[in-house]
């Protein structure tokens, strides 16, 4: 959690820059910086204060082929050739952690009558707040925003799906700003129980690498909304 007390916020920014936060706390700071300009300023202040220390690292020539590798990775959309295909640890984290909460919410929502068996989920924020309702209807996915939040003006939201057993998420496209409802019909995948869905914050035009690059805003797992 990002503290509200100014002294604590500054101390958190300092430790983020120093590098002593654990993975989860560092991610929380990065996530909060997307929308918290004050926190960005505190972090920038600490980066400026401590930056001179980088000269203590001894310069060293990188491997000769490194630029070619970077250039290939920039070309995408075949990042697997350049970067080993490791699923992000956050996918695993969320797959284990947040889906339990999502399942609980989904169970709550199905108390309302549902015509026939549907797949659905509620995408949650990092703080487990419900953000989007997702319902699968045949091959289509219908999304409805439950609690619209502004996106930074230089960022877009991108929707992803990770079918069970897949090692990398598939982009389902960008979510138009200010749009509270939309339907997407993915061509490459079919909605299925257990499929993880997430919305990340990406640069204009969407992720340049074909994989999520920005923070995960919302995440949930499709589950049957009625019957078993």
């Amino acid at each position, binding site marked *: 959690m990002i503290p509200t007390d100014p002294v604590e916020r500054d101390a958190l920014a300092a430790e983020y820059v120093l*590098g002593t936060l654990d993975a989860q706390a*560092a991610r929380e700071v990065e996530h909060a910086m997307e929308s918290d300009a004050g926190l960005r300023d505190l972090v920038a202040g600490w980066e400026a204060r401590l930056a*001179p220390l*980088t000269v203590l*690292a001894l310069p060293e020539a990188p491997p000769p082929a490194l*630029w070619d590798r970077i250039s290939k990775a920039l070309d995408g959309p075949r990042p697997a050739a350049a970067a080993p295909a490791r699923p992000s640890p956050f996918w695993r984290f969320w797959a284990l952690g947040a889906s339990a909460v999502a399942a609980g919410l989904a169970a709550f929502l199905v108390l309302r009558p549902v015509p026939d068996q549907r797949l659905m989920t509620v995408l949650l924020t990092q703080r487990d707040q419900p953000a989007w309702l997702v319902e699968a209807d045949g091959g289509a996915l219908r999304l409805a925003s439950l609690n619209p939040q502004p996106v930074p003006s230089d960022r877009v939201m991108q929707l992803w799906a990770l079918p069970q057993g897949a090692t990398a998420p598939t982009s389902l496209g960008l979510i138009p700003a200010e749009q509270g409802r939309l339907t997407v019909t993915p061509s490459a995948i079919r909605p299925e129980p257990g499929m993880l869905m997430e919305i990340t914050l990406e640069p204009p035009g969407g992720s340049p690498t074909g994989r999520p690059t920005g923070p995960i805003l919302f995440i949930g797992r499709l589950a049957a909304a009625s019957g078993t």
Partner: protein
Amino acid sequence: MHAETDLSTLLASVATGDRAALRAVFERQSVRLFGVANAILRDRDASADALQDAFLRIARRAGQFDATRGTPEAWLGAIVRHAALDIIRARGREIPSDDPNLGDQAVSPEAEERLSASMEGKRLRACLEGLEPKNREGIVLAFVHGLSHPQIADRLGTPLGTIKSWIRRGLQTLKECLA
């Protein structure tokens, strides 16, 4: 064509998608930046991964560089450090903290001279000298070598709780000194 262009201008070109400008940044900065990553990771393969991640971020975020808030070198250095820190965290910071090469250079006179090469470095050095030696060393081990609180505690033979409060107080003292 980019030989004489300064880094800030290059980054502005990178923001427009200019690959040649990014390459010029790489050619000019990669030896320094690879050193920054390798000081944290002490593994050339992992440092190459960190640099690749960092340059993808640089390509994407060059438009966010703001010359009024710091030098392009500092901006690039921060991106590389955080890319290296992400890797070391994902590995559970398994890199041994008892590496004999660790940290000793940070307090050597030669290192202090390098720090004093810039105006900001001189001021930071003067302020660091106002800290307890172990406090100073803890901050350098964390920033330069990516050591966690427990690793610093282990290395300096000091209880973890003490290290945490030292570092916190030390940072605060530095901030006041640099203000």
